[in-house]
Each structure stands twice: as structure tokens, then as C-alpha cells.
């Protein structure tokens, strides 16, 4: 499929559709692919394989002002939601992007291999659902589904919500999983258990801002946490409170706009399940204001900047109980 993709992009470039493509390029290993913007001459560096996990949509923001003509962007089904959302927010101009919807059958998480004690990885052979991992210390076989990125386990489906053309087959890798499983589990806990769960997770935070900087919804020119005039600017969480504050506020600021792309959790060096915060907002929005998926269409008005006269009162939270 990589070959087919490169040939097609080359043809598009020859036709004059665009001069550059936003995609992935090969890294030092087979698995550390890197987001890249390539010209026709660099096209041979383009890769598209099971390790192209990063969501590229946000890179388009910085390209917008530089663009003359169009840029080709490779968009996976799940990334297409972020792309739409960015277009809705006028951060990306749909007209300036030629979207190739690339097929996706789930992306592999190398950290999950490492967590299984498979280290010194040198190569992986893919044969259907079976992966043979070659390492410095011998070969191992694993089931592909077990080492997919977490975001792939709650796959939003194989449909591209936006594209100019599609290349490659997609597959829904969610296997029927309910993405709100963990949210429900947490909701069922006692307040103290929830508190302890989140303290345990958030106390790992090193405030590297990777979650914020990778997030396609966090596209503010100047973040509130970088602005010395807000009084909340902080570079490191000097106190438990600041860890909580950063993550609550960040989740709140993207509520209604978060497409649940899962990048925040993917990039967190400490493996904090940050998507569970965003997903809680999504669950609440679905529950209280009607089902809503950000980025489904360009131009949607999201529920947090909307209202009806019949909305529930905030006391609904208290009434749900489970406080102590």
C-alpha cells in the first residue's frame, strides 16, 4: 500500500495538485516513524505502515500561512475527525488541503511490546494477526490485536469523515469494545477510590506539556498556562493542586471539541490515561445534551457553546449520588 500511495502522490504532484505532502517518514528503526512534510524529491522517504500512529491534522495549522496552493495530507479514519474539527474552528482551510484518506487496520504500540518484556527490538514481521518480533535476545510472537495502540482499541470505525480520495482498506479494530467502559468503572467507584485513582495517575505528571502540544483541539496561540498574566502560569506542578488544575482545565477547555483521538494518552511519557478525562466530558455531553461526536462534519456547533432552555440544572451531578 505504501508503494501505491507514493505513486499516487507523485501523480498528483505531477498534475500540479500540490507540491508537498504531509505524511510520515522513516526513522532510525522500522517503528519510529516521524511526521514529515515532503516534497516530490523527498517522496521516497515516505512511509505508511503499522507504525504511523501520530495524528497529523494539527501540523496543518502551522502550514496554513505558508501555503501557496494546496498541500496533500494523509489522514487516517480517526484523524479525519480532528481534521474536520480544525476546519470548523477555522484553524485549517479545507480548500487548501487535498485529503487522501489512507486505510488503517490499527497501529502498533511498541511500548506495549516493551511492557511485555520484549526489548532490544530489531524487526517485526507481520502476517495477518500474528506478529513475529525479532530482538537482540531472540524472537517472540504476539497477537497483533494485543499490542495495538490504546486508541485503536476504541476505534471510531473505518469510515473517513472527510477525503478527496481514499487509498487502502480500513478495518474497525474496536472489536465491539465500549469506549466508556473505564469511565463507567470509575463512576461506579466511591469518591475516595476515584480520588486515589487520579492522584496515583496525575502525581506522575511531569508537566512536559506533550499532551497539550500534541492535542489538535489545543490550538490556542497562547495557552492560559503559558501566559504570565493569568496567575496560573506554571512550568512544573509545585503542588498536587497544580497537577489537578492543569488537567481539569485542559480537559474542560477542549470539552465539546475533543474528538477522542487519544493522542494525549499516546504521547504521555508517564502513561497517564488522560483520555479518560476527555471521555468523561464526552460521556456527560452524550448523556445530558444528546449524543455528539466532535469532528463528524465541518461546521458543527458543539454542545458546550450551545444551550436549550430545558437543560438540566447542575444539581444533577449531586443527585446522581455516589459522592462519599
Amino acid at each position, binding site marked *: 500500500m505504501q508503494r501505491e500511495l507514493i505513486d499516487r502522490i507523485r501523480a498528483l504532484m505531477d498534475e500540479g495538485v500540490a507540491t508537498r505532502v504531509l505524511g510520515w517518514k522513516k526513522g532510525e528503526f522500522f517503528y519510529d516513524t516521524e511526521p514529515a512534510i515532503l516534497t516530490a524529491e523527498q517522496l521516497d522517504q515516505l512511509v505508511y505502515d503499522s507504525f504511523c500512529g501520530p495524528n497529523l491534522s494539527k501540523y496543518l495549522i502551522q502550514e496554513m500561512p505558508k501555503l501557496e496552493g494546496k498541500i496533500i495530507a494523509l489522514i487516517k479514519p480517526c484523524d479525519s475527525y480532528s481534521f474536520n474539527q480544525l476546519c470548523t474552528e477555522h484553524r485549517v482551510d479545507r480548500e487548501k488541503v487535498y485529503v487522501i484518506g489512507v486505510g488503517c487496520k490499527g497501529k502498533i504500540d511498541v511500548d506495549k511490546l516493551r511492557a511485555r518484556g520484549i526489548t532490544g527490538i*530489531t524487526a517485526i514481521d507481520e502476517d495477518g494477526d500474528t506478529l513475529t518480533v525479532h530482538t537482540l535476545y531472540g524472537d517472540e510472537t504476539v497477537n497483533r490485536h494485543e499490542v495495538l495502540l490504546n486508541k485503536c482499541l476504541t476505534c471510531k470505525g473505518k469510515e473517513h469523515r472527510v477525503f478527496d480520495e481514499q487509498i487502502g482498506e480500513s478495518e474497525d479494530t474496536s472489536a465491539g469494545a465500549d469506549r466508556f467502559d473505564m469511565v463507567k468503572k470509575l463512576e461506579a467507584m466511591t469518591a475516595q477510590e476515584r480520588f486515589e485513582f487520579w492522584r496515583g495517575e496525575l502525581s506522575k505528571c*511531569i508537566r512536559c506539556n506533550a499532551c497539550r502540544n500534541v492535542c489538535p483541539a489545543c490550538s490556542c496561540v497562547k495557552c492560559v498556562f503559558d501566559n504570565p498574566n493569568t496567575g496560573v502560569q506554571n*512550568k512544573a506542578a509545585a503542588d498536587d493542586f497544580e497537577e489537578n488544575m492543569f488537567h481539569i482545565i485542559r480537559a474542560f477547555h477542549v470539552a465539546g471539541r475533543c474528538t477522542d483521538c487519544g493522542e494525549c494518552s499516546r*504521547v504521555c*511519557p508517564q502513561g497517564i490515561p488522560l483520555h479518560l478525562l476527555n471521555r468523561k466530558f464526552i460521556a456527560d455531553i452524550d448523556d445530558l445534551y444528546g449524543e455528539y461526536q466532535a469532528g463528524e462534519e465541518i461546521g458543527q456547533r458543539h454542545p458546550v457553546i450551545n444551550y436549550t432552555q430545558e437543560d438540566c440544572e447542575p444539581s444533577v451531578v449531586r443527585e446522581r449520588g455516589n459522592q462519599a
Partner: protein
Amino acid sequence: MKKLSLNSLNQWLEGIAGERRVIAPIEAADQVNYGVWTPDSKIRLDALRTVKSAKDAFFPQVENMMNFRAEGKNLSVEMIDPKAEDFVILGVKACDARSFDILDRVFLSDPYDPFYAARREHATVVTLACGRPDENCFCVNFGIDPADPKGDATMWIVDDTLYLRANTEKGEALVKDLEDADDAAVKAQQAKTREVAEKLPFARLNLKGFDGDHLMEKFNDPHWAELSRACLGCGTCTFVCPTCQCYDIRDFDTGHGVQRYRCWDSCMYSDFTLMAHGTNRPTQVERFRQRFMHKLIYFPSNNEGMYSCVGCGRCLAKCPQNLNIVKVIKALGGDEA
């Protein structure tokens, strides 16, 4: 050489922890980080890399320096006494052990940093040799032997046995009561580790030209723009790095006084050099370049060729978009020699 069965590790640590804090790689919420050991902690000496490095033990992410109080137009200041308590840091790998030498050059040079100095003085560093380096390791390029780290005492884990060797008086005090052992098993493991280390994909990076004499040439290298393009400008690489030592000094108004604290900062952040009239590194290209130029050129230029990279591989493993120092070395320094 002394030895200890891994089964009695907790017992041994309990003995030490009675007198002073023990800091060791501990697993909490699925991640291994250095933390204070208690009998309930899940110690993970087998973990190759902790997420954060061991530098926290000497240079914590946040540290209070002084307190101010204001009364009318008058101020009073109270310095925080950098008096530290004795502690043992256990399980430090060769790369992290080297990072202490690098941090010493910064914090112990004149005028020395009293907070860092106090912790260094009170620490007993117990290192641990690597048994299973992985593909991201490249410490051998910097003259580090992963099989024989230094510190006050060195440990090796072979099967179910922990072997210990004291290197200093402090180390001797720790291990003196343990059972004597011969070093055959350790020697065998060292040979194996060194053999693997030599075969690692990044075992022979070409560091030629990374020195003060090539400063302008490397600075003006056309590759920087391409190398930094995918950089998110987050601080992951700097915060997991064992040698990154830039910090910020900030004030926090507690409502009844002002705390002046310092905290890690990252040259990757857009406000790192921001002044009222603007910044001298306006785009991510310059910020990205600064980090790697500092590690590979500026620092060695001031420190007799000592690189401020130890090859621990954390930035390789943790960069969200897979940018790292190896890519920089290869792009700027040519291919493997």
C-alpha cells in the same frame, strides 16, 4: 565482592531504610520512577530505564529556595536551609551515574549551588550494571561501560543473586555485613553485556566534528529545519533527560507570603528566552537546535570534550514524534564510522 539473594533484598533494604531514606526504581501506576522505598513498594531493579532519570534525587523538579514576607514597604527574606539528610540511591545505571558527573560540572562549579551540593554530599550512590541493554541504548559512544558502573558501590544481578562491590568507604559501610562471593558470575555477565553493547544499532555513532572548533559549522548546518519540523515543542525530552539542567526561578504568592522556588525548565518552550521585547529564538527550529547544540557542542567546548549526553535512550523512547539526539548526530555527523 559480596552477594545477597534477591529474596533477601527487602530485608537488606529495611536495614538501610531504618537509618536513612532509600531511593530506588519503584513501580507505581504502571510506570517505573525513582521514589522513596518502603517495604510496601514494588521495587523494579530489572527495569532498564526509569521514566524520569535519577537526577531528581539531587536536582528535584521543584524546589523551594526562599520565602519572602512583605509588611508595608518593608521586606524580610528567609533562605531555605539546604541541609539535606543522608540517603542512599540504589539501582542507578551506568548512564545515569555518568550524568551526575555532568551535573556536578554545572552545579558544583564556582559559585556552587548549595542545594545540589548538600544532596550530593549526603548521598550514597549504589549503581547497577545493565544485563539487557536495548536498541535505544548508546552509552558506549561516550566511553561508558554499562557492565561496570561506578558510584559508591556497584551491583550486578545474575539470576537470583545480587552481587555487590564497594568502591568507596561509603559503599563499604553499606555492604560490609553481606556474605563474601567470588566474581566469576559477574565477570561472565559483564562479558555478555559488553558483547551485546558492541552490537547495538547505535554502538558506533560518528561523533567526529562535535566540538567547539566546529561550532559555527554545526550551528549553520542546513539540516536543522528538517530535523525539527515535527517537534511539538513539548518538554518531554528535557524532563526525562538525565543531564538537562536548565531551570526557571518563579515566585508563588501563597496569600501570606511569597515563595521563590525553582523548577525545571525546557529550552524547547517558546517562553524560555522570552523577554518584554521578544525572544531571540522565535521558532522551534532555533529552540530545537539549542538543545542539541548545547549537549553536543557547547557543553563539550567548555568541559574538555565531555558530552552532555550519556546515551541513556530516554529521548528515543519517549519523544511523542520520534525525534531524538541520534537522528541529530547522524544528520549532522555523517553515517556510522
